[in-house]
């Protein structure tokens, strides 16, 4: 069963979109739940994205792409 990796909805208050600044894993890598997998940025402030599940990750959006709160940026299966 695939689990979506989404932009957290509770890290900043406004409805601002986040930009992906770094993927810290490669497409297809096996990740563990809780592992730091990406950094995202909102107005010059960086936030961390951690894996919501263990499994192989399929990256959906590249570095510099923008996503809204709750938007899917990868899937883990």
């Amino acid at each position: 069963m695939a689990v979506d990796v989404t932009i957290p909805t509770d890290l900043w208050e406004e409805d601002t979109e986040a930009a992906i600044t770094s993927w810290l894993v490669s497409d297809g890598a096996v990740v563990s739940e809780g592992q730091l997998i990406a950094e995202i940025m909102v107005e010059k402030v960086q936030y961390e994205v951690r894996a919501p599940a263990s499994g192989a990750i399929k990256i959906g959006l590249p570095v510099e792409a923008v996503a809204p709160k709750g938007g899917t940026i990868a899937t883990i299966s």
Partner: protein
Amino acid sequence: MSSVAVAAANERRLTIARAMAEAIAQEMRIDHRVFVMGEDIGTLGGVFGNTRGLFDEFGAERVRDTPISETAFMGAATGAASDGMRPIVELMFVDFFGVCFDAIYNSMAKNAYFSGGTVKVPVVLMTSTGGGYSDGGQHSQCLYGTFAHLPGMKVVAPSNAYDAKGLMTAAIRDDNPVVYMYHKGLQGMGWLGTEPAATVHVPEESYTIPFGQAAIVREGRDVTIVSVAMGVHNALKAADLLAADGVSAEVVDLRTLVPLDRETVFASVSKTGRLIVVDEDYHSYGMTGEIIASIAERDLSVLKASPQRVAYPDIPIPFSRPMEQFALPSPEKIIEAYGKMKGRRGWRWM
């Protein structure tokens, strides 16, 4: 499991910012003399992210936010190092060197010599370099040559997170002052521009990269492209474009400017016969001229064509985005330089 899958499972990619912070934390855990100071390096974790997590782990005594007074804290770092400590001091932008250059140039770099070697000054001066994100001429310079020119200091400039960690660990353990110049566009901080290729696998365990050993990051036969930091990524992109036209480019990442690995550059140019030096620092009186001179004065006969340089033009860095982008080194300018060596004009000769 295939070897590729094993590698992916053990993968641990870090940005240069995280790699620097990890190296500092590991050295702070094993050496109580190591401490960090600078502007906004405490609770904020550094405006370029390279001291994140240190304040929480080591506290305000060893991770010290300073007032905006480079004159004072650069002198304090020199004094602390002379007295047995091992400070890591951040000059937030290298462009701000002017107000603390007496401490750097006349004390930090020379006290070991002045004292006949009885006083060591093991400072790591880490400082951000580079432009490309429209921050104007007093926040965008590289100034590699300004620091590499003066005897007494080592100068390092990593292009990726693996080198960044190993060079930082080596810098902290070195008994001499080391100027650690990190390019803002390689930090993985987003708003400074992003170069994904700088974010690479970094082992968790501590390791060092010896100073004075350049890395051949891409092998080739027809031309040698030499650079550091962001220039290495421009060189690699140029090498990809050249390869599409059947030209095989070798890319040399110097990694440290002082000491300078002239041997590796000479060996590479002896093989390819052609040399392009790429530098985001100013064109004149800098790294590009130094590299070319070191080949020319050793053996002109290895050269099949006049060496070329792709450097920042000798102008103040423009704030305007189109003007700044026009002035910066780029893969296209490197290809144009290669075409010039082959007697062609313009970069679209391919």
